């Protein structure tokens, strides 16, 4: 059993951490999130050059990593720096492209030349064959950095069942209502009205591919969340040690000490859940899905607790835009809303358990 990252992965972490600390500091972030696109293309280009995007994919797909732990450590650094950018969309779309053999496009994305996004709710759009291609109709909600994406992988239902498609920026029949997000960055409603699309893989065969891509996304979000919790904990402890009321540091108040002890304990549990999700990712479907749902449930539950406690213990100052803490708290709570929330994943965990029983008997 080995809980160390290993040399290569540790190097990736160090490189990425140093880069973000130097090139995506708090001031940069504040500027970037106020821009129209809500992210920084130069920073992204440099990340691509550093191999960070490639770390999300395996060598067969043109990347240099691609294991769940690789994904985890990259997103942990993203969380630590509260970096904004098309990380999640690239991961989700890229996994789908890799699974359907579209490595040429993926390689361009890994090189930073093409920006990807993904809209993977197959109930939100329908696809019909249209000559040699396909036409998609429907609305995909909150597609990450939709307006910035050159290509978007879109799930849609066809006569054959859930299918995956690729659409291209500016193609007719595509409208994007874009907006900033409360936790930084941007997204958009992707409104499709007979939009021209290319089929990825086989029609009707997308369910397993989508599930695997989403599982990778869940691992990513969980590791990002744990890094944010760590940051909230460190910031709050620092505040508790220095802020004085009634003549002493408020960290000396036992009621707060015990709450912080509980929070620290819960964060370790959340970390374990994220490690479990990454570890089970390469196992069979049921084990993988139970672990990612367990992790998403855990980081949802602990995430709200951490965000709320961190703000509460800071008092008023914890509610200000000026303090980075409040942005960490917002991002953490909003991670809870991505790819299924705490409740949904608890229900899913229960259902998967019942599936397992049914299979066993």
């Amino acid at each position, binding site marked *: 059993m080995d809980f160390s990252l290993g040399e290569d992965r540790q190097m990736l972490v160090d490189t990425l951490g140093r880069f973000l600390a130097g090139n995506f500091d708090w001031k940069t972030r504040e500027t970037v999130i106020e821009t129209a696109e809500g992210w920084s293309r130069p920073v992204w280009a440099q990340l691509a050059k550093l191999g960070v995007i490639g770390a999300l994919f395996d060598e067969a797909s043109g990347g240099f990593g691609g294991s769940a732990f690789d994904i985890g450590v990259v997103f942990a650094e993203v969380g630590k720096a509260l970096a904004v950018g098309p990380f999640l969309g690239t991961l989700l779309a890229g996994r789908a492209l890799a699974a359907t053999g579209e490595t040429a496009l993926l390689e361009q994305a890994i090189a930073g030349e093409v920006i990807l996004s993904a809209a993977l709710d197959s109930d939100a759009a329908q696809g019909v064959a249209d000559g040699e291609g396909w036409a998609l109709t429907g609305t995909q909600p909150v597609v990450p950095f939709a307006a910035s994406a050159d290509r978007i992988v879109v799930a849609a239902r066809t006569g054959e069942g859930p299918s995956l498609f690729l659409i291209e920026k500016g193609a007719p029949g595509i409208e994007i209502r874009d907006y900033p997000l409360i936790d930084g960055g941007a997204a958009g409603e992707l409104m499709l009205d007979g939009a021209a699309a290319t089929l990825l893989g086989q029609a009707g065969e997308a369910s397993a591919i989508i599930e695997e891509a989403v599982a990778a996304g869940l691992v990513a979000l969980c590791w990002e969340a744990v890094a944010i919790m760590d940051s909230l904990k460190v910031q709050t402890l620092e505040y508790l040690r220095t802020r004085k009321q009634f003549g002493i540091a408020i960290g000396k108040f036992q009621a707060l000490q015990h709450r912080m002890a509980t929070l620290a304990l819960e964060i370790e549990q959340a970390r374990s859940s994220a490690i479990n999700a990454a570890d089970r990712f390469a196992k069979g479907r049921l084990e993988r899905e139970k672990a990612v749902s367990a992790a998403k449930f855990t980081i949802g539950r602990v995430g709200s607790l951490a965000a709320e406690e961190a703000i509460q213990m800071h008092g008023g100052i914890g509610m200000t835009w000026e303090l980075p803490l409040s942005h960490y708290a*917002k991002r953490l709570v909003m991670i809870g809303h991505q790819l299924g929330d705490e409740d949904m994943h608890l229900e899913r965990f229960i259902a998967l358990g019942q599936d397992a029983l049914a299979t066993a008997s």
Partner: protein
Amino acid sequence: MDLSFTQEDEAFRAEVRAFLQDKLPARLSDKVRKGQRLTKADMEEWHAILNARGWLANHWPVEWGGTGWSVMQRFIFETEVALAHAPRIVPFGLSMLAPVLIKYGSEAQKKHWLPRILDGTDWWCQGYSEPGAGSDLAALKTSAVREGDHYVVNGQKTWTTLGQYADMIFCLVRTDNQGKKQEGISFLLIDMKTPGIEVRPIKLLDGDYEVNEVFFTDVRVPVANLVGEENKGWTYAKYLLTYERTNIAGVGASMAAFERLKQVAATQRRNGRPLAQDPQFAARLARLEIDLENMKTTNLRVLAAAGAGHAPTAESSMLKIRGTEIRQQISDLMRRAAGVHAQPFVTEALEEGFNGPAVGPDFAAPAASHYFNYRKLSIFGGSNEVQREIISKAILEL
């Protein structure tokens, strides 16, 4: 034991409802219901309507413009007003300063300031907290030094809600550095237009501006603006902090918000069924409904005791804690109900008359903002930790 309202109370409720039906502008209730931002003019409009009806200062003594209502009538009024989605009345002049003036102010101060509060001449704000004096309010440092007929004020206040609109601020200032920190505090009324005052907005995490820092540099305040005696301000401040806390639970506001949540749960779908039928969401909703019903009765019990002459003290702390927890939980469920549409930050949708394309269901636009904004409820007005201290000392005698 009889938890029904009296016939008189029900008649009163009907009168309040008729008034609201008649006089509450749909434009305003619509904005409140949608969670849109209220302008200064919006708040002034409703203030004036209530004043015209004579119901604005309902908790004041009748001689100064009060209504003579029982505590139960006031509870009914507050509840109905909230259920009708009326704007909240800004409390700083009406419910915070006025009781202090009425109890401790000079005759001249009452005659001058109280009518101006009623007719809206003065928009008041509060100068209590300082960067180094939050829960430990008595540690405040803003100084007022007597120079002839004036006090010269230097220092800084913070978390001053809606200070950007204010004509006047009531301040706790330090007039003596000797002795215990609670001694040497005075209560001053300061014109916001006095030279040396600077108001700087504090942007909150939801992007909204509602609180401010207020800086004082050699601000000259007439001695006539001292309330009560010099160095006795802590007594007045404490009075203000315990006064009129029977409505602290915000039952009406929570009932209104919960009704809206219930509608959302009945229509918003997840996994192919309404949220009201999702096992986890339904359980959250039911627990909240039960907590709210319980709190409502706890509130009524405190009111009934108050009506029978038992002034609520630490019971208010229980109501404050549970009331804010429930309000926060409602906003928490609203944001959960919004699902992926909690993330979009379409601030234009929070402004009156927004006509752009909606992003997700209409309740979703302010859901996350409200959730984050309502973190303040357990921090401001005496943090819930401070309330637990009060319960522990005053009720439990630990």
